[in-house]
């Protein structure tokens, strides 16, 4: 069974159905979108069940010739890392649709268009993680920008057009650098036994260190912008502030993961030597991201910007875990990608509900919500706790693994990064205090608590956060073989206990 193609076609089919619906019937469009995303989720879970977790090769492989004269294939396949991320994306999609039921109103275009864009985006989210042909990956990587651009620019708030353009330009610049590297790889593959874009073939290329470093940078900067790593981050707060909460969830939760996923799949696999060369620099950037993002989050006055900055901090952790080159760091980073998707989703969705009720996204406009809307306040609090990596919630496992994994090889980086957890307490508790605690701010007395739809949307997210906090083993068992495979491919082994030199 061609699972991956099926997964990619399902949302497109849904989009086609929606486009056939009458424009006036907005409810039908929403229901169709929800149904489609649920079907995709079910299909993904069905596929995941068949995944062999101890097999580190690509699975569910499909390959068809696309443009034979350039050796370009439509080639799909997943390893554990991609599987986990696809799973996350397809679970988040119905949550986003359900949570943002009324998000599309007041957009520049129709409600129908909104859901068509979302579904097209879902297809691309699956494709970008599943592509094993570098060219196909690049095409989807760039094509993803289009629906997001329209989602931000057409349905966002505030300076949405500017934010959308900023997002687009940033991403395009990165993509351009990557394209240059991809073309160089293609040319070199021609000189070394046949033009190809196949990632497995490309990883066998021999090249001198200068070439490798330059090509690595092309890829890495593209992914660093996507991720985003300091100092390529300034597009994210603007985009997150302007986008609808649902879009932000997909943007931060899924699209940004393409960056960190790409670092593992492309940077490390294609350029192992260059990765080692740049590791010190990247680790420094990651640590700066962690601390810098945290400080900016503390200073943020807009709740959506705040969440965006926390994500910058979290992506610093993920990047650090990836480049720490230990199995703990690596597994932690991959798990972090999964967990971050849900904890950010929870934060953004609840923040979105708060904002839509209050009509303002400034933190200072809230206050005393715990008395007025206890359920909403609690979900926000829980999401915040997950964001600050409270033990017992999912983010803790991943964050701690990253820290421990980094510490064994790069203690100084890990120590500085650990200060991030104190800052995390500040950047979560300050908005919690301002928005949820204290006397009820005038104008907030009559805010409505979460309705059933919203509770249904957030419940699975919270459940995943809590369950994975206590019992991450099922996921870790899938991730571990892949993570250690990458580490051993790179020629690293975990540092043995030193006994402090005794």
């Amino acid at each position, binding site marked *: 069974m061609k699972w991956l193609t099926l997964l990619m076609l399902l949302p497109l089919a849904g989009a086609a159905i929606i486009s056939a619906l009458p424009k006036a019937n907005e409810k039908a469009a929403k229901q169709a979108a929800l149904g489609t995303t649920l079907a995709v989720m079910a299909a993904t879970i069905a596929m995941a069940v068949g995944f062999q977790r101890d097999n580190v090769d690509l699975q569910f492989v499909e390959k068809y010739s696309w443009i034979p004269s350039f050796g370009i294939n439509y080639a799909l396949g997943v390893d554990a890392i991609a599987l986990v991320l696809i799973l996350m994306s397809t679970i988040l999609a119905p949550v986003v649709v359900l949570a943002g039921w009324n998000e599309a109103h007041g957009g520049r275009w129709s409600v129908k268009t909104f859901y068509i864009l979302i579904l097209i985006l879902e297809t691309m989210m699956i494709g970008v993680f599943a592509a094993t042909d570098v060219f196909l990956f690049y095409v989807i990587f760039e094509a993803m920008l289009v629906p997001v651009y329209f989602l931000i620019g057409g349905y966002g708030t505030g300076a949405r057009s500017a934010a959308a353009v900023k997002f687009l330009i940033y991403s395009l610049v990165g993509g351009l650098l990557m394209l240059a590297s991809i073309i160089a790889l293609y040319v070199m593959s021609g000189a070394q036994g046949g033009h190809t874009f196949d990632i497995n073939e490309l990883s066998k290329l021999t090249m001198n260190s200068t070439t490798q470093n330059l090509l690595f940078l092309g890829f890495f900067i593209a992914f660093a912008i996507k991720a985003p790593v300091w100092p390529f981050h300034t597009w994210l707060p603007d985009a997150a502030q302007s986008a609808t909460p649902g879009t932000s969830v997909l943007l931060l939760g899924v699209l940004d993961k393409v960056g960190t996923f790409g670092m593992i799949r492309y940077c490390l696999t294609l350029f192992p030597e260059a990765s080692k060369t740049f590791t010190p620099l990247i680790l420094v950037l990651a640590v700066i991201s962690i601390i810098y993002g945290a400080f900016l989050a*503390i200073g943020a006055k807009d709740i959506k910007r705040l969440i965006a900055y926390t994500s910058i901090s979290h992506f610093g952790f993920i990047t650090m875990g990836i480049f720490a080159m230990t199995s703990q760091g690596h597994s932690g980073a991959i798990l972090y990608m999964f967990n971050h998707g849900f904890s950010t989703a929870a934060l953004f969705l609840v923040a979105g509900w708060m904002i839509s009720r209050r009509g303002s996204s400034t933190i200072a406009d809230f206050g005393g919500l715990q008395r007025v809307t206890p359920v909403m306040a609690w979900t926000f609090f829980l999401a915040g706790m997950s964001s600050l990596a409270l033990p017992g919630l999912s983010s803790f496992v991943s964050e*701690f693994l990253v820290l421990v994994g980094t510490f064994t090889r790069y203690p100084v980086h890990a120590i500085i990064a650990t*200060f991030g957890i104190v800052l995390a307490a500040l950047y979560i*508790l300050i908005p919690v205090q301002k928005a949820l605690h204290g006397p009820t701010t005038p104008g907030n007395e009559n805010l409505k608590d979460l309705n059933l739809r919203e509770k249904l949307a957030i419940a699975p997210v919270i459940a995943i956060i809590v369950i994975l906090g206590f019992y991450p083993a099922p996921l870790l068992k899938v991730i*571990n073989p892949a993570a250690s495979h990458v580490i051993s491919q790179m020629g690293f082994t975990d540092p043995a206990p030193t006994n402090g*030199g005794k």
Partner: protein
Amino acid sequence: MSTSNSLVYLIALPLAGAALLLLGRRRTDKWGHLLATALSASSFGVGLYQLSLMLGRSDEARPISQKLFEWIHVGNFNVDAGLLLDQLSICFVLLITGVGTLIHIYSISYMSHDHDRRRFFAYLNLFIAAMLLLVLGNSYLNLYVGWEGVGLASYLLIGFWNQKPAYATASKKAFVMNRVGDMGLSFAIMIAFATMGTVSFSGVAEQAHHTSEAALTGMGIMLLVAAAGKSAQFPLQAWLGDAMAGPTPVSALIHAATMVTAGVYLITRSNFVFDAAPTAQLLVVIVGAITLMFGALIGTAKDDIKKALAASTMSQIGYMILAAGLGPVGYAFAIMHLLTHGFFKAGMFLGAGSVMHGMNDEVNMRKYGALRKFMPITFATFGLGYLAILGVPPFAGFYSKDMIIETAFNAGGVKGIILGSVTLLGAGITAFYMTRVMILTFTGTKRWDDEAHPHESPWLMWLPMAILAIGSVASGFLLSRGDALVNWLHPLFAHHGEHEELLKPIVVSGLALTMVAIGVAIAFAKYSRQEVAHVAPENVSVFTKIARQDLMQDRFNEAVFMRPGQALTATLVATDEAVIDGAVRGVGTIALGSGSALRGLQNGFVRSYAALILIGAVALVAAIWVVVQ
């Protein structure tokens, strides 16, 4: 080590209570508090049952463990969710569930007028569960979960009345300062894993012999940081006073009897680390000694009864930390003081709560006075706790505190003399400020307004106080009779032979009692002989002023961390906007500018296009010319 399947119930019962009450919401309002109390009590029952089983086994067979499920397994980092119940944990289990249950009972009445009582009980249950996980976890990482769990519960409970901004700030402050400590624990775990490859207690205990002192010292210091954060020890002590914003039962349970003693548990539990790292041990002692004096001095100046008691807690935990830092000889005494302190301080806090209950939640002791007549039971239980903390024989504090003073002196050399003197002086100051609390609250003339109608609390409140008072009286004697606790804990700690006795116990007791007597006498002279002012007098010595401001701890934190932090944040926000985003926007501006400059060329006049073509031709010919030359 034998295994058991029933340890999990200790934690699961209160945890289920918390979940039920929080998820059940208003539906459980009517019976939620009863359920919570019952679950806490049943957890205590399980604890007692485990104790009885443990008593029936030999020393070596006493620790039992339970593996719950696979938690984190990555590479050689393997941590299971596992519980360990040994002689040390059982003491804590019983203290937590026992005192916890009493405070549940007390709170039924104390919180009866609060329409969020159910939520309060949910938090209390959550706290009990987290605290039990803390003491039952079989590895540092499991402990860490409980460690942050109690931090969360503490945050929620301090901020229970968070509609008052000051209370919300206090809870945030507590959480953040605790997080600094948690960071220390994180470091300790990382060091343990990097150097020993394991984070379980048994694994680290085994590996500690093979590990360099430097690594162990590092780990020890980090553990101390963690302990300082949780136990409000110097330099992370500032949150405890503010934490009194929470309802009084919370102060009694969390900020007197149990959570704040977690640091002592951590250090005692990590005895194998500290025994091999003398430098870290010395630091523990120093921190303990400083905090001991710090708390005592703050206690002398506080007019808020709860803050005075909080300062006293800080000081008493200083005693415990100091004892724990003295190595194998001190661990058992630290635990003993911890247990007796749990009784008498919880009792006194509940007493304070009872007083507040009768005085319209007034906390200023200058507005009390002569309450003895109006609340006799409260006076009696508080008084017994008072005698216990002073260390008057045969009350509990006499046994535990004197042991610590004695051990401090026996540390030998200059260190012994300094530590001994500090503990002695601390005892004297303790006597002074506790007597001050007694006098201001219960004796003298009435100083309250006419609106206050002091009255005795209902039986649901005084019953737990009475039980705790009995504990304050008897626990010391029972625990030290025949060195019961010392022998009980003996198998857990390494012993390096008998310590020499520099001062006879009777001499130490004499000295201590003398100091106490002096303290009491000064307090009497100062507060009983003369009229107490309604408002704190302004013309006081500079030391009093500093002590009233908690020895400048908040000012220090503000000046050194908060203000620079805020400035840094503001700078970074501005920098991000101006420099990093500015650079990006600069690129955009340049592109736009050059675009509009070039647009001037596209003026629509065919002739200017022709001119451009001509210029292009010139360039082409010039290029050819250059090539040809």
